[in-house]
């Protein structure tokens, strides 16, 4: 292209530069403009309602199930098409928050355990009370109270249980037990001797190091986060909080006693892994961990990754009271914002919670079904799908499940708790000192929480 001074005929340099600058500016402005609705692809012959649905991906096996579940919904309701939004769990809360903040949150989405209150407290969830009470297909009383109890916010139903309700399991590697000539945990269960003390003893007995000091077998794993404590405290009959939710019961002597065991296991027994040992290496999936703390929702993933491991499971160990059995249930909710397609969102989550889908989830996700009426069908098929001795304990676990304590300040509590509890585990500070520090801060946070 020749550049000429006068601009006539051929494009002058100045004119070219002006044109280029204008095009660049237009491109920037165009890229900032929101997409016009309904302009992507060809318009369907029949008008379909598009709804958006978000969930977190908890591994390949779990994610596949969610995709299939949405396929089921679209098959049953061909007038709906679902815009599927999945993201890693660690990013789910932040992403959802920014979507609500920018006014384009999905019409329906999952909500992790214990956070129903936090979201409902912010006023973004739809009140489902009248819908649940007027719909005969939803047998609210027929679902486990431990599950439905956490669907409420200030006496209003704001959520439906999601997938199936997860039960805490302790998975053991039979091969490691056989090689170490240690009795497997089902024997302890049979003699009602599966306690936290036995857990410690067996973890120590199964731990193995090579001649050059490298760990070959990890005895056990455990955490002392708020999640883990739900299991522990319920096993000692200690509620997470006092009645009016003003005090965190971490300083209960039984809980302190349990916590005091952990630095000994870490530093003396060497049966627990230190944080930098366990951070990036999955000892369980590698077949090098004797006893693994897990839950029913991990089973779909274990089916894919633990193929070479001979494993089985028992409930979590027993404290003074009972076998730890807290319910780690997640929920589905409907976006209560004005722009959301609430009717469609309600149809979506109601479908996922329906009796047929409830059983489907329970059989594929290996958690208990929400409905007692599905229990027999579920139990009778489990052993055919994944043959394990552990299924024999499932009914008891389901019937004695304890609910997660719903609180609006879970993130704040997690932050305070996780900030210091590691020092107790590692033995850097005395357990009693750490516990006092945490409970004081948590109680103060609760008092100031708005």
């Amino acid at each position, binding site marked *: 292209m020749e550049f000429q001074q006068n601009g006539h005929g051929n494009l002058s340099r100045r004119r070219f530069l002006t044109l280029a*600058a204008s095009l660049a*500016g237009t491109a920037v402005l165009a890229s900032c403009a929101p997409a016009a609705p309904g302009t992507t692809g060809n318009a369907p012959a029949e008008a379909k309602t598009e709804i958006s649905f978000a969930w977190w991906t908890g591994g390949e096996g779990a994610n596949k199930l969610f995709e299939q579940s949405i396929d089921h919904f679209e098959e049953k309701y061909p007038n709906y098409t679902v815009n599927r939004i999945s993201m890693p769990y660690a990013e789910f809360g*932040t992403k959802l*928050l920014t979507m609500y903040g920018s006014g384009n949150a999905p019409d329906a989405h999952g909500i992790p355990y214990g956070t129903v209150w936090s979201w409902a407290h912010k006023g973004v969830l739809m009140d489902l009370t009248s819908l649940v009470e007027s719909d005969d297909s939803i047998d609210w009383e027929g679902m486990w109270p431990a599950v439905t109890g956490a669907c409420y916010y200030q006496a209003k139903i704001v959520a439906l249980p999601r997938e199936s309700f997860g039960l805490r399991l302790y998975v053991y590697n039979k091969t490691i037990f056989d090689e170490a000539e240690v009795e497997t945990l089902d024997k302890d269960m049979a003699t009602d001797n599966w306690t936290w003390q036995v857990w410690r003893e067996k973890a120590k007995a199964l731990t193995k190091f090579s001649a050059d000091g490298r760990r070959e077998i990890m005895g056990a794993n455990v955490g002392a986060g708020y999640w883990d404590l739900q299991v522990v405290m319920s096993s000692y009959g200690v509620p997470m909080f006092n009645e009016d939710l003003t005090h965190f019961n971490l300083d209960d002597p039984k809980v302190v006693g349990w916590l005091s065991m952990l630095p000994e296991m870490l530093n003396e027994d060497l049966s627990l892994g*230190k944080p930098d040992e366990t951070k990036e290496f999955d000892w369980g999936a590698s077949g090098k961990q004797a006893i693994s703390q897990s839950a029913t929702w991990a089973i779909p993933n274990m089916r894919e990754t633990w193929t070479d491991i001979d494993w089985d499971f028992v409930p979590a160990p027993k404290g003074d009271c009972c076998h730890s059995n807290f319910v780690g249930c997640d929920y589905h909710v409907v976006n209560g914002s004005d722009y959301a397609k609430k009717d469609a969102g309600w149809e979506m989550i109601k479908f996922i919670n329906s009796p047929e889908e409830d059983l489907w989830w329970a059989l594929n996700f290996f958690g208990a079904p929400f409905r007692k009426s599905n229990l027999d069908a579920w139990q009778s098929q489990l052993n055919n799908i994944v043959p394990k001795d552990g299924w024999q304990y499932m009914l008891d676990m389901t019937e004695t499940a304890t609910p997660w304590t719903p609180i609006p300040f879970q*993130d*704040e509590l997690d932050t305070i708790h*996780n900030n*210091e509890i590691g*020092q107790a585990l590692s033995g850097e500070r005395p357990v009693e000192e750490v516990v006092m520090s945490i409970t004081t801060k948590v109680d103060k946070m609760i008092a100031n929480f708005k």
Partner: protein
Amino acid sequence: MAKEIVAGTTSINAPIGPKRKAKMSLMARREELTGWLMAGPWIIGFLLWTAGPFGAAAYLAFTDYDILSTAQYTGLENFRVMLFQDELFWVAMRVTTVYALVSIPLQIGLGLFLAILLNSRIRGLAWLRTLYYLPTILSGVAVSFLWVWVFSADWGVLNYVLSLVGIQGPSWLTSQDWALSALVIMSLWSVGAGLVIYLAGLQGVPTELYEAAELDGAGRWRKFWSITLPLISPVILFQLIIGIIGALQTFTQGYVMTEGGPNNATLFFLLYLWRNAFKFLNMGYASALAWAIFAYILVLTLIVLRLSESWVFYTGEIKGRR
């Protein structure tokens, strides 16, 4: 002669009276328009993604805002809580300041030292320069994970090296006493960025000055103190200011490696700000925190610039004469 007026200048034949703005010619207007159009994309980006959020944060700092509901005006409440009620604000300020006070001099000293070593006609200088600079371009998250392993109490490289000289290393990242020190050590990993700049500065020092000093009997240290340091003082000033801005905005290491623990030992200010914004949904308070750190960095930078008049020398400048 009255007609011989060059655009933008005043002719001696111009009438005496109030000054009039010279009317721009068509060509000049076109040039100005072209200039604005060329700068347009940057200006739009600045307004949308810098000035806009700045203004929004300035407003939100005076509100109670949780993203999910409308912002409620609360006046100076956020600042009152920040200064007089929030203990963690002062913890975060202290941690961040200590980190900056220790890491910046170390980075400047080490960078300068390595640059002096490399400032000679050695073979492979370009390769060495690249090697030292490489860590700077690596992803902060990936580097953080790498350093978690380096600082591992039982398996880490650092404690292994210390054990060779009979020292039992601490539990770096899980120790309240050593976690911040670990992150200071880690900050030296990216000294290469400064090294390259120091090297450029050193290579700009006229060699005749060193020759003249040698003739006068100056030793190595004297030459360094009286010639090298003054002449690269502008570079040091630049690195100091950039270092202050960077160190006070440290986030990744605290987020990835320690989550601010143990027991707030590595609670960097930006990590605390992020928590308030995105974990606790206190956007209004987080905006107030953002303005606090902005003011803090601005004041420190101005102090450094003011003090620099006494120790920074620019070529050709004569001290005392402005």
